[in-house]
């Protein structure tokens, strides 16, 4: 029966990551942003947390933790610095196409070496199979060509192209040219150009690709949840300090209601992520739930982050405070994993085409 209790080991993990985020990442996020990278000593501290292989199976020296655990970790990291979270996670969401389409053999071949290297990064990019080649890589035969205007990385050791039909792995034949980047600069920012890059592997498997994309969406939605939690909390605390017209601005009802709604938006995003992650871990269909969670988190991010800045007024616009950074990062995160409209398409189809009388029934047709 419905129960949100986290297992004891996950509570411990959450506490550890929260501590790391608050004391290490949060304190230095402007420095990471300026450098477009996370400093080496911070990498060492992150490595000590043992999160790198948390989702890998135990047979591959991983911790075998699931999507729910990953969502807990990502919310905590995203609460401090989602760009740094990407920079620190060597496999990142590129893990999912490797795992869902290539299986353990692909993980052993492509993922494990990255975990042994220093500051390695695997990148996953969305290849729009509806409009191939438009602002995304074009796969022709055993090679890929094209330009992606932005990726959240300064360098990549492995590239995975994911589209609706499957995924391809690329190890060479591409280059990254630095760009300024809008948000998530701590992860680096570059234009990606592929010139006849050879495919090291190419898997056709639409169902596996859908699961990989769903997990990428959850990854992003969990980061967004953390980010907006911080934005909401920071602005709530400020609204209690700042006095206007004789009382704390939080006690003007226009702001009191806004703060309540921002708090609700964070909780709604989190619980949709949790449900979808639970479905993934339980072996139930989860692509629709993950798309729903991503759309909600993306929209909520665009509600919470700009209003958090708004509560700070002119100060929020200044780069002395992190509010403007939260806004850029929320905007950028919501552009990832193929973007919000692609997720809306999937979630909308799930509703419009569901079995009669089963739209949102507690007993869903797919489970019955």
């Amino acid at each position, binding site marked *: 029966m419905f129960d949100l209790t986290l297992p004891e080991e996950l509570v411990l993990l959450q506490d550890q990551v929260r501590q790391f985020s608050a004391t290490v990442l949060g304190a230095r996020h402007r420095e990471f942003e300026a450098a477009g990278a996370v400093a080496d000593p911070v990498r060492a501290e992150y490595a000590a947390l043992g999160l790198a292989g948390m989702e890998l199976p135990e047979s591959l020296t991983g911790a075998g933790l699931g999507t729910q655990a990953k969502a807990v970790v990502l919310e905590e990291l995203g609460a401090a610095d989602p760009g740094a979270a990407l920079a620190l996670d060597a496999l990142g969401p590129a893990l999912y196409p490797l795992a869902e389409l290539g299986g353990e053999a692909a993980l052993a071949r492509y993922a494990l070496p990255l975990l042994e290297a220093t500051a390695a990064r695997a990148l996953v990019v969305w290849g729009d199979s509806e409009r191939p080649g438009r602002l995304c890589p074009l796969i022709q035969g055993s090679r890929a060509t094209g330009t992606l205007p932005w990726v959240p990385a300064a360098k990549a050791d492995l590239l995975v192209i994911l589209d609706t039909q499957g995924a391809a792995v690329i190890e060479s034949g591409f280059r990254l040219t630095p760009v300024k980047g809008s948000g998530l600069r701590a992860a680096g920012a570059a234009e990606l150009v592929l010139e006849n890059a050879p495919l090291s592997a190419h898997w056709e498997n639409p169902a596996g690709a859908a699961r990989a994309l769903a997990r990428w969406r959850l990854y992003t939605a969990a980061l967004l949840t953390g980010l907006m939690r911080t934005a909401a909390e920071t602005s709530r605390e400020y609204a209690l300090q700042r006095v206007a017209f004789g009382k704390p601005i939080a006690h003007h009802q226009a702001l009191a209601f806004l703060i309540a709604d921002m708090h609700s938006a964070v*909780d709604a995003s989190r619980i949709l992520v949790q449900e979808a992650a639970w479905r993934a871990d339980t072996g139930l269909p989860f692509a629709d739930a993950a798309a729903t969670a991503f759309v909600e988190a993306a929209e909520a991010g665009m509600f919470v982050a700009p209003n958090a800045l708004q509560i700070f007024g002119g100060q929020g616009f200044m780069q002395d405070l992190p509010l403007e950074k939260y806004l850029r990062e929320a905007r950028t995160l919501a552009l990832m994993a193929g973007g919000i409209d692609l997720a809306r398409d999937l979630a909308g189809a799930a509703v419009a085409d569901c079995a009669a009388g089963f739209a949102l029934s507690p007993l869903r047709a797919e489970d019955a």
Partner: protein
Amino acid sequence: MDFAIDPHTARRLAAFDDLGREQMRPLGLEADRLGRPIPPDHPYFQTLIDLGFGRTRWRPTQEAADKTTGAPVGNSRATLLLSEQLSYWDRGVAVSAPGPGLGEGAIIAMGTADQKQRYLTPFLHPDKPRWGAFAMTEPGAGSDVAAIQTRAIRDGKNWILIGNKSFSGNSSRADFILVWATVDPSLGRAGHRAFLVEHGMPGLQDFHVERKMGLKAYESTSFRLEECRVPGANLLGGEDHYAHRAGFKGAMDTFNSTRPLVAAMAVGIGRAALDEAIGFARAQDITGDPRIRDRLERVARKLRAARLLSLKAAWLADHRQPNIIEASMAKALAPTAAFEAASLGMELLGVVGARGDHLIEKLFRDVKAMDIVEGTGQIQRVIMARKLVGLPHG
């Protein structure tokens, strides 16, 4: 974490399908068409009794155990899912159902052994439909329950109640009404007392069944307490209870556990509207339109989040953890999500909805009440803001 519904609850939900489709929906539409509540002698109510509904969750033998463990351990989550499912079929018909009513929780929590015996025993194995009712709202006090004006004046061993009550569900047909009054309006919540007022007590009079926009299957009734004399034994909890406890707490306990429930009812109405809207859109072959799909997606997503947040609030209650913010959050979000579902349904229907005889049109009228009862959406935000930023009272 677990988001599954246990098999036992799942079976109970599914058990309502036939009753819902064959009786509740048609009865709701009929009451709506006729513009009056389902009469108390309608065979549907006897059917409910025969099926085992209309009973109290109180058990005389539980008393001893409760004394040692506090209030009985609830399963708010299962209750909440059942409420959602009943509202999916017809919220108005669901509320019309016989049973001890909204006051049951307060009687179990606060009532003396004798009061539970007298007022809940008839609901253990009822031979016929019986109702209990709850009366808090007044013409001048809705969401702000602390502002009730109905006076309770001690007169020897008795109490005299004077005042007006509004929108009390099922009260004209109820065996008893749990009436909230104040011994001194200047005391606010601390002055509140609840009384078990029996049908037929002199001074309980002028029942007026209101005409409503929707939810017509159950009666929302206003009545007057014209120097209504109530025996001292009918003061809920007895004198001792108020000697060492704030009088208001009983009412607030009821509200805290019912907000998620009302949120779930809204989700049920919203789901019904969504299902009907999809069915209609499919018949018109317009579900392929990306504009329509986007709107269906949004409505389904908001309802899904509202359901999960309602369950979260109930889960917290089941674990005796503070749930004030979460209960208000669910109550604030679910009715607007459900309203959006019904309103989208009307848009898809187009002028078919304007005819005034489609189920979605009825749901559109029904659902608005959900943002009002148990504290309006605005009051929920006030409550949340008190917790989040210490928004001052008043």
